[in-house]
């Protein structure tokens, strides 16, 4: 079941997605998290952030919308407090998810996190608004994605993956821009922009009005984008979006993913990743798959 992401060997391709697993140690209250391939930790910024006002979450058919707003304790507290707690219970490679509102912020955070033991992959979340670019998300233009990747690439010593937003017209152009700028891999998809209205109060359910839609409903969109990007790029792709089962993991890998992140499913079922990993061997046997690496991008 093992896979390799830019030289980093994972025992299996299953990675809890950023924002759905905290810094891991909280989930160790449910099961031994060393069964996981890796963990992508909660999106971390330079400064501590409280995030958006409440309510931050809304129910949807086969999914949910969240507008947490990147609440996190800030890079220094993550390095000093969260990572030691994470390493105390988790001995596998860690994916460090880094966010920023300016190129300087990305660079500063990555410079710090790249030195950390057990952080084997850095995952840049480029879905946040660029405060110097009129608030438009870094991830919505090939030029700004390339710019942030080039800047960060100069300071990191670990493989750099870029987590892309699906809220764009041409995902392939953006993925290729990241690849040409030196990214070692692509992760997609982040959440899709969505909204719910409480028809009784005639107001948006979420205080921030809009938020990121995730869950089983977005799976076909994720499979499509993973397929398009993996065909267009040479660098590995981590597939993410609506994965809930071992069958979904295999489908995502057939679309072109080398590893697979599981997000919202953890929030309903804290054992989701464990159950998926445990179900993978039987699903592989049922489909006549000897090694998972044999099916990556087979479609």
């Amino acid at each position, binding site marked *: 079941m093992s896979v390799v992401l830019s030289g980093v060997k994972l025992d299996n391709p299953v990675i809890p997605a950023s*924002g*759905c*697993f*905290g810094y891991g140690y*909280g*989930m160790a*209250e*449910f099961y031994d998290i060393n069964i996981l391939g890796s963990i992508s930790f*909660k999106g971390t910024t330079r400064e501590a952030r*409280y*995030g958006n006002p*409440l*309510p*931050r*979450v*809304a*129910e*949807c*058919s*086969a*999914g*949910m919308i*969240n507008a*947490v707003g990147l*609440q996190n304790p800030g890079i220094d507290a993550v390095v000093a407090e969260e990572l030691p707690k994470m390493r105390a219970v988790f001995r596998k490679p860690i994916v460090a998810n880094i966010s920023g509102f300016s190129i300087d912020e990305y660079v500063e955070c990555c410079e710090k996190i790249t030195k950390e033991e057990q952080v084997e992959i850095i995952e840049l979340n480029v879905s946040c608004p660029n405060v110097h670019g009129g608030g438009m998300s870094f991830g919505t233009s090939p030029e700004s994605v390339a710019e942030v990747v080039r800047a960060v690439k100069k300071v990191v010593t670990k493989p750099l993956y870029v987590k892309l937003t699906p809220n764009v017209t041409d995902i392939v152009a953006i993925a290729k821009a990241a690849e040409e700028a030196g990214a070692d891999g692509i992760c997609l998809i982040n959440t899709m922009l969505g909204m719910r209205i409480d028809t009784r109060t005639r107001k948006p*359910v979420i205080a921030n009005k809009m938020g990121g839609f995730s*869950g*089983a409903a977005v799976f076909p969109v994720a499979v499509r984008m993973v397929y398009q990007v993996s065909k267009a790029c040479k660098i590995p792709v981590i597939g993410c979006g609506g994965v809930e089962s071992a069958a979904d993991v295999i489908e995502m890998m057939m679309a072109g993913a080398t590893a697979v992140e599981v997000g*919202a499913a*953890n*929030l*309903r*079922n*804290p*054992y989701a990743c464990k159950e998926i990993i445990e179900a993978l061997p039987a699903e592989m046997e049922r489909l006549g798959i000897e090694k998972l690496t044999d099916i990556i991008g087979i479609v």
Partner: protein
Amino acid sequence: MYKRDKYTVVSNRALSAKTMLMVLEGDTQYIDCAGQFVNVAIEGKFLRRPISIFDYDEKSISLVYDVVGEGTKAMSQMEEGTVLDLLTGLGNGFSEDADCQHPALLGGGVGCAPLYNLAKKLLARGVKPVVILGFNSAADVVTQDMFLQLGVECYVATVDGSVGTKGFVTDVIREKGLECDYFYACGPMPMLRALCKSLEWPGEVSLDERMACGFGVCMCCSVETRSGAKRICKEGPVFSKEELIWK
């Protein structure tokens, strides 16, 4: 520690037009104090529904809940024998051993729920609380009879004055001239704000918010406190009066 397990509905009945009492049987060993909650998975709904524990013993959990949306409506229609997937052991509940001799238990609407087991715990250690419950109208009044059966004083306030004191729980405190040394409260935010601002007694309140996970990883229910951001599902739902910031 947390526990996910299957629980069987043994009864599910209406206490009023909108409030239900569901009793479930199953493993309760991870519930360790009054004021904790369970997160209920409902078929066809993506997110679980966080519901306060009204009461529990070695093998059963009682939930008092309002039917407010599709999820709780589905719960209200569940028959005896229905098997539910619950997460238990969630949240930091009330301090059952708070330094007090005569505490007030103040509930607003369905916020009466977590106070019931608390009243039992307090009685068990020889502390006799006074319970005051606030509702909109006489038709909404629930659980007063159950508190009375415990042998505690239990007063009711209604906004329209159709039963009990007209007004809010604070009006009962004033009218009866109640002298307490501590308070425990659960109810809508405006009520909790009013209590924390007006009562001189030390106390603690249980907050209610939309949640996703219920076990502290998604950050959907964080509240700013005097000691930084806290998760209502993990460090809460109960916070001391001093810890909360009322704007």
